[in-house]
C-alpha cells in the first residue's frame, strides 16, 4: 500500500538525517477532510495518513519551509509537482532545500466524490521528484474530459447573462481569503489587498461589486502562472467555481499564444511575460473581447 511505503520511507529519511521534517497529511475534523501537516519526529509520524482524502496540494506550504534550516521531505502528487515546479521557475523555492517524493494518485475525493480537479486529471507524470512511490493502479490514466467545456459554455452567454452568472456566484463570497491563501501562485510577500499603501484594499471593500473585483484581480495576477491545480475551488467554503476564471485565461492564452501549461518542464516560454514577433496583435485580443 502506498501510504505504508510512504511512512516507512519518511521514517528512514528522518532517521538517517537526510531530511529534518516531513510535509504530508493528517486526519482532520471530518472524515473526508485531511489536512496538510508537518512531522518532525517518528512519534509525530504516527499521525501521518495518505489516501483518497489527501487532496491538498502541499506546494504552497513549502514557501515558509524554504527558509528553515535543513531539508524538508515533501510529498507531491503528479499534479502538485506542476505547482512546485512553477514556484521554482519563479525563484520562490530552492530545489536543494527539498527532498521530493512523488506520490502515486488514483484521484482524490471529498464527501461528494471525486474532486473537481481530478475530473480533469493532468496525468500521471511527475514534473520532478527525487524518488517515486506508486503502484500499478495509480499509474492508470484517468478518463479524458474537456476541461474547457464549462468555460466554452460561459463564452456562449451574452454579456448580460455572463455578468449575472458571476454576480450571482461571487455574491456568496465572504472574503475569507482561503482561495488566495491556498493558491500556489499567490506568493507575494505582501498581497496588494493587505497593503494599505496600494490603495486597493480600501476600494475593494467599498461596495459589494468592488469586493467581487477581488477575484477578478486575483485571476489577472495569477494569469500565465496558474497551473490549474483547482485548489481555489476546492477550499472555497461557499462553493464558488473560482477555477473557471483562471481556466478562461488559460483557454485564451492557449488559443492566442499556443498551448501552454504553467509549471511544465524547464521554463522556456511564458506567454504573458515573453514577447515574440509572432505574438498576435493586440487588436485581435480586442476583437475577441467583443464577440
Amino acid at each position, binding site marked *: 500500500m502506498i501510504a505504508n511505503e510512504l511512512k516507512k520511507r519518511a521514517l528512514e529519511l528522518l532517521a538517517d538525517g537526510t531530511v529534518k521534517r516531513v510535509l504530508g497529511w493528517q486526519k482532520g475534523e471530518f472524515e473526508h477532510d485531511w489536512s496538510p501537516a508537518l512531522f518532525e519526529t517518528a512519534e509525530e509520524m504516527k499521525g501521518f495518513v495518505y489516501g483518497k482524502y489527501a487532496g491538498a496540494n502541499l506546494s504552497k506550504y513549502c514557501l515558509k519551509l524554504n*527558509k528553515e534550516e535543513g531539508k524538508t521531505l515533501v510529498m507531491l502528487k503528479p499534479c502538485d509537482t506542476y505547482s512546485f515546479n512553477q514556484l521554482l521557475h*519563479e*525563484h*520562490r523555492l530552492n530545489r536543494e532545500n527539498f527532498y521530493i517524493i512523488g506520490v502515486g494518485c488514483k484521484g482524490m475525493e471529498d464527501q461528494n466524490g471525486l474532486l473537481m480537479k481530478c475530473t480533469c486529471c493532468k496525468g500521471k507524470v511527475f514534473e520532478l521528484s527525487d524518488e517515486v512511490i506508486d503502484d500499478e493502479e495509480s499509474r492508470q490514466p484517468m478518463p479524458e474530459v474537456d476541461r474547457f467545456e464549462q468555460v466554452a459554455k460561459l463564452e456562449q452567454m451574452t454579456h448580460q447573462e455572463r455578468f449575472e452568472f458571476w454576480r450571482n456566484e461571487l455574491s456568496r463570497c465572504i472574503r475569507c481569503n482561503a482561495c488566495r491563501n491556498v493558491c500556489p501562485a499567490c*506568493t*507575494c*510577500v*505582501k*498581497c*496588494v489587498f493587505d*497593503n494599505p*499603501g*496600494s*490603495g*486597493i484594499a480600501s476600494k475593494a471593500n467599498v461596495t459589494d461589486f468592488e469586493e467581487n473585483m477581488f477575484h477578478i484581480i486575483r485571476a489577472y*495576477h*495569477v494569469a500565465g502562472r496558474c497551473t490549474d491545480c483547482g485548489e481555489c475551488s476546492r477550499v472555497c467554503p461557499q462553493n464558488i467555481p473560482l477555477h473557471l476564471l483562471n481556466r478562461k485565461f488559460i483557454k485564451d492564452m492557449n488559443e492566442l499564444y499556443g498551448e501552454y501549461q504553467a509549471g511544465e518542464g524547464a521554463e522556456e516560454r*511564458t506567454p504573458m*511575460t*515573453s*514577447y515574440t*514577433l509572432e505574438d498576435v496583435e493586440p487588436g485581435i485580443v480586442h476583437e475577441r473581447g467583443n464577440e
Partner: protein
Amino acid sequence: MQKIGVFVCWCGSNIAATVDVKAVAEAMKNEDGVVVSTDYQYMCSAAGQKMIQDAIHEHQLDGIVVCSCSPRMHEATFRKTAEAAGLNPYMVEIANIREQCSWIHKDIPEGTEKAIILARSAIAKLRHNMPLQAGTSAVKKRCLVIGGGIAGIQTALDVADAGFEVDIVEKRPTIGGRMAQLDKTFPTLDCSACILTPKMVEASQSEKINIISYAEVEKVSGFVGNFTATIRKKARYVDEVKCTGCGLCMAKCPAKKGKNEFNMELDNRPAIYIPFAQAIPNVAVIDPEQCNKLKNGKCGLCERVCTAGAINYKQEDELIEREYGAIVVATGFQPMDVNPLNELGYAENADVVTSLELERLMNAAGPSKGTLLRPSDGKHPHTIVFVQCVGSRCDENTKRGKPYCSKICCMYTAKHAMLIREKYPDTDVHVFYIDVRTPGKNFDEFYRRAVEQYGVDYIKGQVGKIANENGKLMVQGSDLINGEQITIAADLVVLATAIEPDPTARSIGTMLTSSMDTNDFFTEAHPKLRPVESPTAGIFLSGVAQGPKDIPETVAQAGAAASKVIGLLAKDHLVTNPCVAGSNELLCNGCSQCEKVCPYGAITYIDKEVRGPGVREVRRVAQVNPAVCQGCGACTVTCPSGAMDLKGFSNQQIMAEVDAICL
C-alpha cells in the same frame, strides 16, 4: 498644502470653439490647492509662457497644470517654461483638452464638461508629483542604416560626410535597391544607373561606411544613443574579400534556371551570380535553392574555375553584434502583387506587365538589351495600353488594393509613354487614368509634353477587363469624357502597380518599437513638424518606408534624416528621462516577471539583506538600472505585488487620475 496654478489654452479656436475655456478656468478655481486659474489664447506663445512664469513667481506655485494640446506636442515646452521660472520641470502636468476633447466633440457643453474632468484629473495627479532630476547617458557614435537603396545610401553618405561611422545593412546581395532597376528617371530623363552607381561607388569607397550586404537585422535592444543590434549576415558561399567579381563562375555554372530577381524574373540567371554588372559589393553569391553542389553535392564547377579560390560551400551565416547611437529605417518598397486582380489577366498573359517589369524591358542592361520586345513572342508591340492606379486609391472595403495614392505612377507612366513614342514613333500609346497628378517641379510640363508633343492618347476612365483574343489583348474600359465604353486591341499592357512597404518593414518596426500605420508605412513623430523622425527616440525614417515618394523627395528626406542623425551623434551625452522605475524591496517577492518583460534589460535580481518593520532577512529582490530604464512601465503593470513603481507615473498618481474621473 500645495499651491497649484491652472492655465487653460484656447489654441486659437482649436480648443475655444468647442470648449468654454473661461468656464474651465473658473471651475478649476474651486479645486483643492489651486491658487490661480486663468486662460489665454496661445499659452505656448512667448506671452503665454511669460504669463505662466509670472504666476509661478507671484503665487510661489509648487506645480502647474496646463490644459492644452497633447503632451507630445508641448509638454517639453511648458517644462522648459517652468524650469526657467525656478520650478522643477516634473511639477508640470498637461491636461490634453485638444486632441482628446475639443477636436472630437461638436457640442460645447459636452466638450466643456469633459475638459473640466480632464483638468481635474491632471490636478489630482499633480498633487502626488515629486520633483525629479534628469541624469545623462553617453552616445555611441555610430549609425545603423537598414536598407541600401537610394534612401539608405544618401543618408549614409551624408552621415559619413559629417565624420561618423555608418553601417548599411542590405538584405539583397547588392546595394542599389529599386532605383538600380529603373531605366530613365523623370522629369529630366537622365539614366538611373548613371546617377545612382556613382553614389554606390562613393558609399563603398568611403572610409566611414561599412556595407553589410546579404544581411538582415535580427534583434535590436537598447534606446536612443545606446542601441545594440544583432545582424545576420547570410552565407553567400563566396569569400567577399577574395572574390574579384570576374564573372567566370557565372559563365561556367550549369544550373541556369534561377529566376533573375533583378530583371523582375523576366529571364534566368545561374545559381552563382552577381545581380548586375555594377553591383556593390561586386561579389558573387550562390543561390542554395539552385546550386547542385549545395543541394546534392554533385558539381563544384565554380570552385574549380575560380582562380581567386573564393568559393566556400561550407560558409555559414555570421552574426554581427554592434552598438549604435541612431538607427535609420530605409526599407523601401515593392510593387503590389497584382495576381489577385483577375480581370486584368496579369497571371495568364505574359504581355500584361507591371511598370517595373517594363523598366527592365526598356533597360539597356535588361533581358532584351533595351529593345522593347513583348515577353510572349519577342515581337515589337505596336499598340500599348497603360492602366494607371492599379491597386492604388482603392476602397478599403473591397480589399482589392491600397487606399492610398502611390504618388509616382502618373509620372513614370508619362515617362514610359513618352520614351516609347520617342524611340518607336510607329507605336500607338494609350493611357487609362482616373486623375493625372503632377504636383512637383517641372512635372506638369513633363506630362503635357507627353500629350502635346508626343501624342500620347490619355483616356479618362478605368479598365474593366483585359481578355486575350487570338493573341491580341482586348482592353475594355470606359471613356468618361466621350461617355462611351471602348475596347482597344493591344499588343502590350502595362499596369501602373501600387507600391507597398517592403514586407520586412513590419518585423523591423516591431523590433524597433517604432509605430506604423495600417498600411505598414512608418509613422512620423509629427506629420508636419517632425517628418523624418519616428516617435521612438533615436529611430529615423528615410525614403518610401515612411510613405510613397519619388527619387528627389527620397533624396531630400534621406538628407534630412541624416542631419537629424548627425545632430544626435554630435552630442556626447543625452539627458535621460528621470521617469524611471524603482522597486520597493520590502514588497518585492523576487519572481522575476519584471525582468522578463523589460525590453531594455534594465532589471537585474540580487540577493540582498532587506530591512523593514519586523523584517531583516536576505531576499532575492529586483533592482532597476536607472541609466538603462526608459520608463515604459511594463514592469509596473506586470508586478503582482505593486512593488515596482514608475517615477512620474506612479500607481498612486495614476489611481488618483482615475479616481478624479470616475468617483
